[in-house]
């Protein structure tokens, strides 16, 4: 089963990378851009039924894929 873990900096955490990307986009002439935030997408194949896989992905995120001090995460499972 294909799964995704999306990791984002918490809303209150400053994202200098996102700010730099935003400035670059504005510099390219995309004038409507604001609030750019850069996160991570981790894709993986996992065996098992969807419910168990979701619980396992959450455990993976808690232990390694995200740092709860600075990041939030979201898990998605497909087919």
């Amino acid at each position: 089963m294909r799964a995704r873990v999306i990791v984002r900096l918490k809303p209150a955490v400053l994202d200098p990378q996102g700010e730099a990307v935003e400035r670059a986009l504005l510099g390219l002439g995309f004038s409507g851009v604001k609030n750019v935030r850069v996160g991570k997408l981790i894709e993986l194949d996992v065996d098992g039924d969807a419910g168990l896989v979701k619980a396992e992905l959450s455990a993976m995120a808690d232990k390694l894929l995200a740092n709860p001090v600075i990041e939030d995460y979201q898990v998605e499972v497909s087919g």
Partner: protein
Amino acid sequence: MTTAVVTFPGSNCDRDCVHAVRDALGAPVVRSWHKDHELPSSTTSVMLPGGFSYGDYLRCGAMAALSPIMAAVKRFADAGGPVLGICNGFQILCEARLLPGALLRNHDGLFHCQDVELEVSAGGVGLLAPFDRRQRIALPIAHGEGNYTADEATLDRLEAEGRVAFRYLARDAAGNGLVNGARRAIAGVLGGPANNVVGLMPHPERRSGAHLHGTDGLLLLRGLVAAGAGFAEAHA
């Protein structure tokens, strides 16, 4: 009485740490490798050096925190053994949850390589015994991710418990470190059951002798080695 310097793939300050302790301080040093499951039996203190362990994959220090040697370092720290993490070593200690908080990318997105003035806020405590409380020192920094952060409750607790080890003297209007945005200008913190774990972003090993333009850093290494001697005596 031996200081174990741990090398991870991507560590680049490990030999500097060996040089500082062995040559500048004249104290015994042993090297340790990330795949080792135990620290050398003679170990009385541990240094986690700076660098880019595992290429900073995922997050700085995240992979190193899970390496076999870190399980041994955690057992050592939990038993009260003195551990010093410098720069990437500090990031590893935070990722291993041996110290609270996390190190974010610098607020301006830049890598800063320069000297900074610091206050040894917890001077006199544990590994910081060679310093006076609030003694001012200067050490070099070299990092892109030294912006210390933790939730407000954790920051309040660190201050209340006297566990802010080092602070940057130069602050912005909000009281954060001017050089990297570190919350409450925190450059290093104390942890462990007896304040025996210290992590800091500046590099004490780079100020460990006259040939390295100063000895402010040597005091911290001396404190580490002395704490190791005390630990060995207590466990003899």
